[in-house]
């Protein structure tokens, strides 16, 4: 198993013919991902790395049975793209695009719930399962090793660093999912934890959190009540001052909420093992067994 993506994952890329689209279709194919279609209005009939391009997601789904969409379209067209994918029957969406207005994200996250679909992101690097040869997103392929640690993270590069250090120690990953750095995201730590708890391939979970919001506090409470697998965590932003957006739109201490202190305290209370430095996660997991 794995979470959110597996060997049945068939990817359509929305925004396929742009620079980013072309590059990452190639990278995903190299990873072994079944990229079956691309969508760019007006470019029906073209191909990118042999992948056929369609005008609409509906046509792509009808022709290729795509079930997962990678959304790479610019922020101001993203809501439309997500709605289009959902109405076309896509059940898993990975939204890479950043700078999507929050109100747009709120609308499509709830519309996805109505459709019973999973949205990962927005403003996320995507998801990769090395064992299932399924990568939907822009994560660097080389850092992954097949294994039993599930990783869920609000950040990108920091996660690559952590995954890389796990891999260097021979600690492989079941699935690594980047949840996104925005305040409004479709899949939360709780959703990822529930999926990892169910996933027979995952033996331990690593959460990479940061300041802003209460996602980590919510997760801590959820872990206490529902999660039996060991959880490790790193929280970025211990030194961030209130009121400043630390690079991510979601990484901000606002109105007294979202401090690293509060998150660390909540995790400690829930028995989660915390690392002081990113690469220390590998030490903790190794020590655990």
């Amino acid at each position, binding site marked *: 198993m794995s979470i959110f993506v597996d060997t049945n994952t068939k990817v359509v890329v929305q925004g396929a013919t742009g620079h980013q689209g072309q590059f990452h279709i190639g990278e995903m194919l190299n990873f072994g991902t079944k990229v079956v279609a691309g969508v760019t209005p007006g470019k029906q009939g073209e191909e990118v790395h042999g992948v056929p391009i369609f005008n609409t997601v509906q046509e792509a789904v009808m022709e290729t049975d795509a079930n997962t969409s990678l959304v790479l379209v610019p922020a101001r067209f993203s809501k439309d793209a997500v709605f289009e994918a959902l109405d076309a029957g896509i059940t898993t969406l990975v939204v890479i695009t950043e*700078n999507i207005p929050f109100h747009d994200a709120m609308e499509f996250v709830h519309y996805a719930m109505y459709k019973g679909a999973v949205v990962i992101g927005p403003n996320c690097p995507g998801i990769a399962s090395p064992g299932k040869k399924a990568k939907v997103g822009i994560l660097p392929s080389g850092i992954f090793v097949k294994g039993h640690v599930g990783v869920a993270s609000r950040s990108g590069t920091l996660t690559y660093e952590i995954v890389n250090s796990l891999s260097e120690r021979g600690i492989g990953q079941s699935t690594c999912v980047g949840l996104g750095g925005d305040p409004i995201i479709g899949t939360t730590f709780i959703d990822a934890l529930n999926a990892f708890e169910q996933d027979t391939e995952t033996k331990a979970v690593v959460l990479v959190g*940061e300041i802003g919001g209460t996602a980590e506090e919510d997760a801590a409470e959820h872990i206490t009540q529902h999660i039996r697998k060991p959880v490790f965590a790193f929280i970025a932003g211990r030194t961030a001052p209130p009121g400043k957006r630390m690079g991510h739109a979601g990484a901000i201490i606002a109105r007294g909420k979202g401090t690293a202190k509060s998150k660390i305290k909540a995790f400690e209370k829930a028995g989660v093992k915390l690392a002081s430095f990113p690469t220390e996660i590998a030490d903790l997991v190794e020590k655990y067994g």
Partner: protein
Amino acid sequence: MKLFEYRGKQLFQKYGISIPKGTVIEYEGDHSNLFFPCVLKAQVPVGGRGKAGGIQLAQTREVAKEKLAGIFQMKIGGFQVKKVLAEEKIGVKKELYLSYTLDRSRRMPLLMMSGKGGMDIESVADNLIFKEWINPLIGIQRFHIRGILAKLELEKDEEKKIAPIVLKLYKLFREYDCELVEINPLVISGDEQVIALDAKVIVNDDALYRHPDLVAEHQELTMLEKEAKEKGIAFIQLEGNIGVIANGAGLTMATLDALTHYKGKGGVFLDLGGTDDPEKVKQAFELMKKAKPKVILLNLFGGITKCDTVAKGVSTVISKEGIDCPVISRIKGCNEEIAKDILKDAGLITAGSLQDAAKRSSDLAGW
């Protein structure tokens, strides 16, 4: 983007929410539109101006001139006062609190009201703050308003006057893509009018393109932060003296945290993000130099952003303009070895681990 109080109140007016009669004073000698008595309110993008003396009552023109001179001298929360809002004084019968924010956990707008207006909402007891969540698929409905007003123990007549304000404020919140709109206090005046005495409006930066009537001002940013924003670089000035450059917000934050662990203090947060463009790296490094840190710590994990691209950008700036502070680098990932060679040639110190780099930077900065 946080709007000044007077700008927020202009939006309130547009949506039919009553505000006190007022005029904006653009410079110290600008007295022509004043009326008396009036309340003089410093326009700054931070809270706490009342305690700092930024709100004063003036009964006469004489007093007003004197007080304005004082207020225009003030720096509140680090921000020089550049505008003052002069308003009529409103006789207050009741003070309420009304706001819309984003509930990140539920992914919905959250309506909050309290009968305890006029004070910092964080200091109001939880059981005195009432909440309604507005599902974005349906927007605000009568039942939300009916439900929350029923809990405030108002007169029927007051409820009737406040209900439309709650509705209108939601419209403003939604239509202007706000992260926060807050009226604190929303007052019922002596003559039974409902008036917004204050206005706090934060518009989602990413949606500003939909609101060409709002000129991006970003009053809350420093000069360098504004310059960075224009160039599309994530750059934040902090209190310390070590400049941190990394790629990715999480990694940059983690680097700052590592400094703190070794008693260092970050002075700049500079996130290169996912760029692999040497020109952008160059711009970012120039910006970092302008911030005049005592030490620069460069922490890279190469993936989409290749290590050598960053190294090239940095070495270009150094070879052209020189550098008057030590630069410690820690490089990992895609094209790591090439990057290390480039940076060594440029005279940079390379460290083996983040811990090592952070320790050496902190020691050099000598905090």
